[in-house]
């Protein structure tokens, strides 16, 4: 049966309650009659022969690029960079897409007799991956062949010996990237495209860059001008990365880009009710929902988190393309839109969404309040093309427990950002004056380089991600969140959806129009 396209449901009196994510748990909420609920297109079919598809892609590249086989020869230096643990979400069942692609690349490299090969996790300023995470992403065979010999690296943006400055773009933006990657004879990048923001020139220009480079586009101004950053042609974030990527190519760095699309088959069998339309739930689905949601309410946070973070998604590769960066990315973006895009007529006064337990920055970790804001106002708000789903001055209502809890090993600088910076101001344009101190603090740098911590400046980026939404909206309300934490974020806490809608009416007027973004799976709205 072919996958059904997405559609917009108008809630009537016969519509059952709608499923909302609520962190490590979920709820059913009754939306008022007349609300619109956006349902994503169903997952497209996976490739029946992924390994064959990869081989073909490597042999028949897109754009101005020669087949990979012909670019490999004995005595050359080869670097293979790959996306880090922030993709895919949730982590996929073995074998991971990166494992499949890199194994094929290495087969060709072994055949050609290439000895000098290094694998680099393209972290940018994200945290280093643990051995278990690397093993999962690359597979045991690749990990065991490279890690014990010190050939599996993690990009270190704070080591000046590992960086090389390639120059300035015509807008004066520094381009400084990983030295090994820039000076190899060939750089192969293995990407996973979950949303339209990923991939293209951003892979190398951001993934392998330093703070000096990143601050040119990771700032409040750029993000406010990205409308949205899922739409490459209307995104200042992408314009900047494209300039940088072209400079990288012009500097003589040969990049062979391999991009993969994943379908949105996000949750395994026991959670399949999450992706199904509520009126299509069978008795089994309803039982599963009731049993699990009640059990989760009674479960302590730590246990609930470990249950959810151990979920391995069944999503699979739906397309793979390789070759020259821009040609490859154009095809990839088409595929992402084909899977996720949904046409929506007009904006509404209120946008509601349930936020899951996971975002790119808390894999195997705790979702702290700053990440809640980033997931809702950064990612979900920006899943649009054209104009936002909610009108200027409207209200976003998010559902998440928002605990005042931080992972001290992964997010140490987030704690200080929350306690010190947000206590003073929540305006993305104002927080910049603290950025330098956080970016250069020796303790955060130490933890980023030797531990598994996000870089000191990273919480700022999370807040910049919300810049467009914060400028656009009249108010933000979080349902079911910790009151003190929600207030610290500058939002309003509500204990129930009904209260939240009441509070929202104060801002947008009586009888507002409501749109709900039903996830999972991911969807992107094409708003006319």
């Amino acid at each position, binding site marked *: 049966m072919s996958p059904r396209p997405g559609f917009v449901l108008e809630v009537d009196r016969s519509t059952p309650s709608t499923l909302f994510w609520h962190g490590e748990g979920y709820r059913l909420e009754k939306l008022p009659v007349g609300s619109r609920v956006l349902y994503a297109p169903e997952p497209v079919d996976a490739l029946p022969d992924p390994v064959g598809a990869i081989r073909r892609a490597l042999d028949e590249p897109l754009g101005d690029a020669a087949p990979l086989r012909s670019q490999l020869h004995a005595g050359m230096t080869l670097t293979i960079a790959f996306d880090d643990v922030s993709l895919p979400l949730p982590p996929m069942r073995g*074998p991971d897409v990166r494992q499949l692609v890199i194994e094929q690349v290495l087969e060709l490299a072994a055949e050609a007799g290439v*000895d000098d090969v290094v694998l680099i996790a393209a972290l940018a300023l994200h945290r280093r991956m643990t051995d278990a995470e690397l093993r999962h992403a690359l597979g045991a*065979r690749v990990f065991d062949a490279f890690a014990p*010999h010190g050939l599996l690296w993690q990009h270190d943006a704070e080591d000046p010996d590992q960086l090389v400055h390639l120059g300035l773009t015509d807008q004066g933006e520094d381009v400084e990237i990983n030295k090994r990657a820039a000076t190899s004879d060939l750089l192969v990048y293995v990407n996973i495209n979950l949303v339209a923001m990923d991939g293209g020139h951003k892979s190398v220009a951001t993934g392998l860059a330093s703070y000096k480079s990143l601050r040119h586009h990771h700032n409040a101004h750029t993000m406010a001008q990205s409308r949205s950053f899922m739409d490459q042609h209307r995104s200042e974030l992408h314009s900047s990365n494209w300039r940088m990527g072209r400079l990288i190519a012009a500097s003589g760095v040969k990049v062979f880009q391999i991009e993969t699309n994943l379908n949105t088959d996000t949750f395994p069998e026991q959670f399949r009710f999450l992706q199904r339309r509520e009126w299509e739930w069978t008795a089994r689905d309803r039982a599963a929902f009731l049993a699990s949601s009640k059990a989760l309410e009674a479960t302590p946070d730590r246990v609930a988190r470990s249950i959810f973070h151990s979920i391995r998604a069944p999503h699979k590769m739906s397309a793979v393309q390789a070759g020259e960066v821009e040609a490859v990315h154009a095809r990839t973006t088409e595929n992402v839109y084909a899977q996720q895009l949904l046409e929506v007529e007009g904006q509404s006064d209120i946008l509601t969404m349930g936020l899951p337990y996971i975002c790119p920055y808390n894999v195997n970790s705790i979702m702290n309040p700053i990440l809640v804001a980033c997931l809702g106002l950064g990612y979900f708000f920006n899943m649009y093309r054209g104009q936002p789903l909610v009108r200027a001055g409207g209200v976003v209502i998010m559902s998440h427990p928002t605990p005042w809890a931080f992972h001290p090993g992964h997010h140490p600088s987030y704690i200080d950002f929350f306690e010190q910076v947000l206590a003073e101001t929540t305006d993305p344009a104002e927080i910049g004056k603290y950025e330098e101190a956080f970016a250069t603090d020796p303790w955060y740098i130490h933890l980023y380089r030797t531990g598994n911590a996000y870089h000191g400046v990273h919480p700022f980026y999370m807040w910049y991600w919300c810049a467009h939404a914060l400028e656009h909206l009249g108010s933000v309300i979080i349902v079911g969140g910790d009151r003190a934490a929600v207030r610290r974020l500058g939002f309003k806490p509500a204990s129930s959806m009904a209260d939240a809608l009441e509070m929202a009416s104060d801002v947008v007027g009586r009888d507002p129009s409501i749109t709900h973004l039903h996830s999972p799976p991911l969807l992107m709205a094409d708003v006319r």
Partner: protein
Amino acid sequence: MSGAERLVRRVSRLRPEGFPWRAPTWPVTLERDPPPRHLGADYDTEWTRRYPARLARAVLLDNVTRPLAHIVASPEVRGDEILEHVEAPAIYVANHASHVDTGLLLSVLPARVRHKTVVAAAADHFFDRRWKAHVWSLVLAAIPIERHRVNRKSAEDTAALLRQGWNLIIFPEGGRTHDGWFQPMRGGAAYLATRTGRPVVPVHIDGTYRIWPRGGTHLRRSPTRITFGSPIVAAEGEDARRLEARIDAVLGTLADESRTDWWSARRRAGAGETPSPRGPAASPWRRAWALGPDPHADDEDDDSRWALADD
């Protein structure tokens, strides 16, 4: 001070201080020879070949080591019918990938061989401390062998044991492999064979590298295959060097046979096309890559791995 420390203190105070309750101190003005330390190659394993020790070892091998080996390594044995006709005592030479090799090989040998076998073990690794020397010589009938230096004594002692009727297990590589491929062989086995005239039985052990490799922190259950080859006897007047080359070739063929099958391995051996068990001359990642994909890779989730040390 914790409760445990207090208890220990109190117990140790039950024995009064001073001589003769405790060992005497030596007067400063008198000369003293350094006390003899019989460790390493000097360790005397004679007591482990006396009846009480042999009985204890047999019980342990049959009731603990064998079942454990079957659980952890599920060995598949090929060519063991040869063992019926081997004249005891014999020298069993095998490739070495893991510490579990010894226990596994002992587990698959027939009982009469298993109970009358000594194992050549590295003196610097297994006999460097008293407790280790005691344990390994009792449990596995290990005898110390110098692997970094030429030591006449240990060679002579081993030859004597062979003449007394003890089988010998020896790993000619001298240590476990670092990357899964064979290491260059040393001449110990060939030397002993020519001195004593005993037959050499080649053995190939496949799969222990995955169970517990060198430097590994986890013990993983994984199936293994043990292949026995026809015994090699030193020809009249054959020198050790020539015999060593013969043993080397046979082990290579056995490795090939273990991976494929007996006939195609024979044909390749005949044509001189046996792939080198030492692996390609290439960078470490390519050598690891050339080991090939893991046939048992579907036990991806680490449930069957047990940590042996802190990660």
